[in-house]
């Protein structure tokens, strides 16, 4: 690790710790309230806190934190069974998949025929 960067980091960490032992109370707190800038709260933020607190929730509701080591999950909820295997790379053909494809094609054609039969006007 770069020594210069480590020194800078240690300085930063020391400054971050500087306020830790300083327990603010009484006049200090009053002074700080006057002097510190107001980091405005959005309506959404205030609403969320009021709703949660009044409902008795001890912790703020928030979105799930994503695991840093996991890739973003790909939702397959809308994908029907077996379809994921149909789009293969060149050279990655699979006899079972080909057979299934043929079957699906056949069924699809048969369905069309059935529908056509149903829609067809009865002949005299």
């Amino acid at each position, binding site marked *: 690790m770069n020594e*210069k960067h480590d020194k800078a*980091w240690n300085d930063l960490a020391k400054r*971050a710790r500087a306020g830790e032992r300083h327990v603010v109370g009484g006049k200090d707190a009053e002074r700080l309230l006057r002097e510190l800038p107001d980091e405005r*709260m959005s309506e959404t933020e205030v609403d969320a806190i009021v709703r949660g607190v009044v409902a008795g929730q001890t912790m703020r509701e928030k979105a799930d934190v994503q695991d840093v080591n996991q890739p973003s999950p790909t939702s397959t909820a809308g994908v029907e069974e077996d379809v994921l295997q149909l789009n293969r790379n060149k050279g990655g053909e699979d006899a079972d998949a080909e057979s299934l494809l043929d079957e699906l094609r056949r069924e699809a054609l048969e369905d069309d025929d059935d529908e056509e039969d149903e829609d067809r006007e009865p002949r005299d």
Partner: protein
Amino acid sequence: MTNKQDQKAAEVSEEDIALRMMEREELGLRLLLLKYGGKVKSFLRWKYGGQLDREDREDLLYQAAFRAWKYIDSFDDAKGSLGAWFVGIAQNVTIDFLKRERLPVGVVDYDPPEHVDETEMDPERRRLFEDLDRVIEQLPRMQQLVAKEDLRSGGEADGPALAKNLGTSANAVRVARSKGRATIAENLKKLGHNLGGDA
């Protein structure tokens, strides 16, 4: 927040807010947050610097609001203002949070100051930690997490404990730490902050 609501919060008395909260009126809590919520967030950033990130500050403000709502009956205006009471609550929940969340400390000596160096509590401190927040937010995710945990732990969290916590290897932590520190130091320098390594 609308200007009208802000104005109402600015005009309403602390006594009115406290009484509304004691009467379990939601409006009382809303007014407390409008009047002092932003100040409390600012206080947490100023006092705890990089030991808390934005999400921590939001969680802690929530917990402070929860306690204020629960224990409003214990507020005594003879002892201080409602705002100071709320700041005190936020401070207490933060102390508990840091005790609970800190990882074991690593190789860097952890030497918490016995007293406050007043020169560190000046307005420049606030600017430094605002900039640090932004610089850390721009880091890749793993570097961000390592930097935040290190700051929370007082300088450098124990590598294996941190690796376990983040679900990665100690080596990945070491690399992320090294890269993150370099970027943070360089970017803060560009923003005009004079840190120890610049001397």
